[in-house]
C-alpha cells in the first residue's frame, strides 16, 4: 500500500514538471476518480458478498427454523437444532472421523510429504527431480470422484486389487470387504485420500525447498554434516513456515471432506464412515431437514473459521519475520 501512494505521488510530481497548469484540475477530480475506481472491483464484490458471504449469514437463520416438508410452513425453533446436535450420536462419529482424517493427513501429507520432497530435491539430476515430482502429482490432478470410484473397486473383495494382492503374498487372512465393515471403512477412505493427496503437498514442499540458498548446504557439507543433519538443521527450519501453513490447510480440508466419502460409502455401513459434510448432505438433502443440515453446516463453519484465523495469523507472522 505504501509503495502505491509513493508511486502515485511520484507520478503526479513528474506530471507537474510537464504540464504544471493541470495540477489544480486533477486535485479537484481526485475524489471523483477515487469513486470511479470502484468500477474495477464492483463485479467481484457483488459476487462475493451475494454468493459467498450472504449464504453464511443466511445459514444461521435457516438453522433456527424448521420447515415442514408436507405443509411447507416454517417455524422458528431457536436453538433446538443445535441441541439436537448434542444428542445425535452420528455427529459424534462424524467429528471423530473428521479428526482422524486431519491427524492421518497431517502425518502423511505434511510430514511424509516433507521428507519425500527433501529426498527428491536431494537427487543430483534436475531431470529426475522433475520426473518424480510429476509422477507423484498425477493422482492429485484427477478428480476425487474418479479416484474414489477407482478405490471403491480396488477395495472390492471379488474384483479388487487389494485383497487379491494380499492373498498372493500369503496374507489371505487380512483380506476383507474394506468398505463394507464398520471398523475399516473410514480408514480405507482416508488411505485413498493419502494416495491421492501426498503428491500435491510434496510438490509444494519441493518448491519451498528450492528457495533455500544452495550455499547453506555447501557450507554444511564442508562442516561434515550428513544427510539427516542437513535435513534436520537446514531444510526443516527453513521450510517451517510452509510446514505450518500446510498443517493448517490440511486440517481445514479434513473438516470439509465430502466427495470421497460420498462416492465410496455414502457414510455407511451403519453411518460408521459419516463425516460432517456427508451428514449435512444426508440430513439437508435426503431427509429434507434444512434446519438441522444448516446447524451441521454451522459446526463446519466454526471449525474452518478457527483454522482460517490460525492461517491468517500464521501468514502475518511470517510476513513480519521476512
Amino acid at each position, binding site marked *: 500500500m505504501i509503495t502505491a501512494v509513493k508511486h502515485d505521488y511520484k507520478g503526479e510530481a513528474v506530471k507537474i514538471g510537464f504540464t504544471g497548469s493541470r495540477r489544480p484540475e486533477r486535485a479537484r477530480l481526485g475524489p471523483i476518480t477515487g469513486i470511479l475506481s470502484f468500477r*474495477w472491483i464492483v463485479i*467481484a464484490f457483488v*459476487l462475493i458478498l451475494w454468493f*459467498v458471504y450472504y449464504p*453464511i449469514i443466511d445459514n444461521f437463520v435457516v438453522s433456527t427454523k424448521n420447515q415442514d416438508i408436507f405443509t411447507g410452513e416454517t417455524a422458528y425453533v431457536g436453538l433446538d437444532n443445535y441441541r439436537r446436535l448434542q444428542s445425535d450420536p452420528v455427529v459424534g462419529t462424524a467429528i471423530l472421523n473428521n479428526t482422524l482424517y486431519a491427524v492421518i493427513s497431517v502425518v502423511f501429507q505434511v510430514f511424509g510429504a516433507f521428507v519425500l520432497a527433501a529426498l527428491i530435491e536431494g537427487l543430483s539430476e534436475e531431470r529426475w527431480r522433475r520426473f518424480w515430482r510429476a509422477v507423484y502429482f498425477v493422482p492429485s490432478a484427477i478428480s476425487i470422484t474418479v479416484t474414489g470410484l477407482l478405490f471403491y473397486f480396488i477395495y472390492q473383495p471379488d474384483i479388487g486389487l487389494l485383497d487379491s494382492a494380499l492373498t498372493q503374498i500369503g496374507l489371505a487372512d487380512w483380506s476383507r470387504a474394506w468398505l463394507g465393515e464398520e471398523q475399516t471403512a473410514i480408514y480405507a477412505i482416508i488411505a485413498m485420500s493419502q*494416495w491421492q493427496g501426498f503428491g500435491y503437498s510434496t510438490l509444494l514442499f519441493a518448491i519451498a525447498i528450492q528457495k533455500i540458498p544452495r550455499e547453506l548446504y555447501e557450507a554444511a557439507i564442508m562442516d561434515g554434516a550428513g544427510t539427516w543433519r542437513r535435513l534436520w538443521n537446514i531444510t526443516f527450519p527453513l521450510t517451517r513456515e510452509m510446514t505450518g501453513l500446510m498443517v493448517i490447510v490440511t486440517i481445514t480440508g479434513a473438516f470439509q471432506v465430502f466427495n470421497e466419502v460420498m462416492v465410496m460409502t455414502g457414510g455407511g455401513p451403519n453411518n460408521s464412515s459419516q463425516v460432517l*459434510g456427508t451428514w449435512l448432505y444426508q440430513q439437508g438433502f435426503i431427509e429434507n431437514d434444512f434446519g438441522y443440515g444448516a446447524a451441521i453446516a454451522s459446526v463446519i463453519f466454526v471449525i474452518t473459521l478457527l483454522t482460517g484465523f490460525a492461517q491468517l495469523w500464521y501468514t502475518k507472522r511470517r510476513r513480519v519475520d521476512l
Partner: protein
Amino acid sequence: MSVSHQSRETERTDFVAVLAKVCLVAFLISLGVVVLYPLFWMALNGFKTNAEIFGNPFALPGGFSVANYIAAWNQGIRNYIATSVIVTLGSAVCTVLVSAWTAYGLTRSKLPGKPFFVGIVLGGLMLSPTVAVIPLVRMMQDLGLYNTYWALIILYTAFRIPFTTFLIRAYMLGLPRDLDEAAIMDGASEGQIFWKVTLPLCKPILVSCVILHVLFAWNEYLFAMIFTSGADLQTLPVGLTSIMAKHGTNYAVVFAAMTLSALPIVMTFFAAQRFFIRGLAEGIGK
C-alpha cells in the same frame, strides 16, 4: 599404511553412499508403482470384458478392443464432457477476468480504503462451499438458475474470485510501475493502462490462474451434484456416479468411463506443468 587405511575408509563411505542411493531409488520406484499402478489398472480394465474383470485382477486384457470406451463415450460421457467443458471454460474466463479487474483496482487505481476491500476478498478464502450450500439452493431456485449452466458458472466464479484475485494481486504488486507512469504521461486513462499495459504484463500469472481454475472446476463435485439434476446438465464427476448407478454391473464400461474422464485433465497437467507449478508457488500462502 596410512594411505591404505584412508582408501579403505573412502571405500566404506562410498559403499554406504551407494547403498543409500540404491535404497532411495528403490523406495522412489516402489512408491511410483503404488501411485501409478492403480491408474494403469483402471485403464486396462476398460479394455477387458466383464468376465475378465472377475478373473485375476493382475492379468492383462485378452485384447485391446475399444468397445467399452466407445460404449462409455456414447452412453453419456460425451454429454458430460461437453457440459464440463462449457462450465469449466465459462467460469475460468469469468473468474480470471473479474479477478484481474479486482486485483488492478486493489493495486493500481485511486480506490479509497484499499486495505478494507483487500480484507473482504481475503476473508472469502476462509468461507467454504459446504457451509453455504443449503442457503444457496433456495437462492438459486429463487433466481431461476437452479439446474442451469449458469448456476455452476456463477458459483465457481464467486467462490474462486478470492483465491485468484489474491494470486494476481500479489503478482501485480511486484510489477514495475515505469510503464504505467509513461502511459499516464501519454494521457492514457486507467482503463487503457489496464488493457494495454498491466494485463499483457500479467500474462504468466493469468495462465497459471486459468490452469488452477480448470483443475478445480473440472473436478468439483458438491455444487455440481446439488445444482444440476438433468442428465444433459451433469458435469463429468456427477455423470460418472450416474453411469456407476446405471451400469453398476457392467464394470468394464464404468472403468472405461473413469479413464476417459481422467484423461483430459492429466494431459492438461503434463502439457501445462510449468505454469501450474508457478501458480502453486505464487499461491503458497493459501
